[in-house]
């Protein structure tokens, strides 16, 4: 217990953000403008913009965070504050394919443990880990709203439902 207490870190750890600010293509800038135009208050666009930065850069890396702060006229800490609250935002690199297995009750009783075991054995990693080649990250996540088609997992934004071990093999085998 005491060792746990000593190891507690502040929520927003000091990060060396450096001087680098990310830049994006004109198409991506246009997409960002489209989101910003939806709101009377710039800050409201923070989540859609974070998803764009994450898509373009893999995760919310320091240059990406610096870009968001500059674009939204916010402080770096404002960006970190939001980024650390939401489970879909990554402040550390994740695998190219982020496999998120739903572990909440309906999926749990409909076979999630077997699916998790199968995925992890196949990839040779445990939940929370990334394969050495950086291709796959496996996470156990809370309810994704697919309870009637349980068990399920999501890869990136794609839903895969009514899973069996054979179906998991087929899905993983079909990834480029």
């Amino acid at each position: 217990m005491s060792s746990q207490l000593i190891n507690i870190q502040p929520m927003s750890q000091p990060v060396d953000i450096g001087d680098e600010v990310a830049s994006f293509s004109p198409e991506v800038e246009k997409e960002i403008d489209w989101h910003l135009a939806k709101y009377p208050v710039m800050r409201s666009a923070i989540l859609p913009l974070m998803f764009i930065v994450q898509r373009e850069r893999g995760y919310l890396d320091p240059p990406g965070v610096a870009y968001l702060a500059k674009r939204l006229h916010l402080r770096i800490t404002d960006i970190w504050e939001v980024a650390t609250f939401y489970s879909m935002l990554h402040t550390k690199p994740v695998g190219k394919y982020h496999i998120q297995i739903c572990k909440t009750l309906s999926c749990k009783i409909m076979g999630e443990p077997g699916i998790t075991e199968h995925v992890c054995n196949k990839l040779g990693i445990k939940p929370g880990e990334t394969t050495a080649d950086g291709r796959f990250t496996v996470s156990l996540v809370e309810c994704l709203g697919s309870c009637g088609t349980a068990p399920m997992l999501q890869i990136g934004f794609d839903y895969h439902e009514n899973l069996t071990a054979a179906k998991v093999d087929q899905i993983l085998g079909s990834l480029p």
Partner: protein
Amino acid sequence: MFIGAIGCEPLQLARVHLENSHTLEVYRKHGGYESLRKVLTSMSPDDVINEVKKSALRGRGGAGFPTGMKWSFVPKDSPKPKYVVCNADESEPGTFKDRYLMERDPHLLIEGMLIAAYALGAKTNYIYTRGEYRYLIDIMDRALEEARAANLLGDKILGTEFSSEVYTHTGAGAYICGEETALLSSLEGMRGHPRMKPPFPAVSGLYASPTVVNNVETLTAVPDIIRMGGEAYQKLGTEKSGGTKLWSVSGHVKQPGVYELPMGYDDMEKFIMVDCGGILGGKQLKAVIPGGSSVYIMRADQIIGKDVRMDYEGLVAGGSSVGSGGFIVMDETVDVFESTKNLTEFYKHESCGWCTPCREGTDWLVKVFRRVADGGGRPEDAQLMLDLCDNIEGKSFCPLGDAAAWPIQSAIKRFPEDFKKRLAGNGQL
């Protein structure tokens, strides 16, 4: 998976099986946007609110607050802009009805939002969708584009003086953002922390302006209310809960799905055992959570032979509540200690950390559950869990704390054997 109506004509699910049901063409061919036209050309905003009041429509997100009354709280004389925000942050375990409404009939939601926007005088409206439902945001964006091109959205809608815009917004993975004030914090670009009420969003919501936050299912009920009249809609259900209700059914049933039933459907046993095909693999029913993970768990003997009526009052009388209408059906193989532990882990993960009773309480509950699960159950542990729940329930800043406590309290009370067998000396309760 089944999607359809039982015991009534489908209203909200009327078009879901049509080919290309998500397109404007199909929606209009089946009477789509005629309610909006009726509202814009022949009704005053007050007329609309009165119809919704007459319909006895109650909020379908979980709290069940009368929708017409919620709308009437928006001050008419406010100089500030007004907003309608659709809560599509469907994250309550066991609930997946909004997903299919948006996937199959996005224009129904747009029409419902525009009618609400007209009634409240809102020029800008947002659909806050959970981040994981990205494919639905894409479907909604395409539908909004279609509506805009057909002059059903934007300036001078259908050639009238009414102008209003609807935009999609993405969440990013936080159950708490389904709570309406946390949703508004998130939509303003903050951490999703709930806010003190009062002031209620109707007075001071998004950007401190009058705001109505309604669930997807609530807003998609509105076009039918306008089409058939509030009274006729109410008569489909009961006096206090009008219309039809969507129930998401998952777990150990032969036919899981989204079921549209008239409010006050008789009865819950028939629903599970006949309509949903009964229990998988010929096993016995053990427990049902009827309203999403936050409501009281029910024993089979509270359902079988008990004529539990499926509406707000009926389910309370039966020992639980409607919540979000998410049925999780569990057979005899389920250990209720394990199922309750699973949900407690969920609430601990989703507690936003804003208030102490919920943040610390859910964390301690999980620690006790894990210790018991690992074989270290002490005689007093079930009582310890109840004491922890007592320190959360009614003492947290928002209802998430209550939602974490209720499943545990009801599980220990109704399935004491599943807890006691894990505690040293068969426990003390």
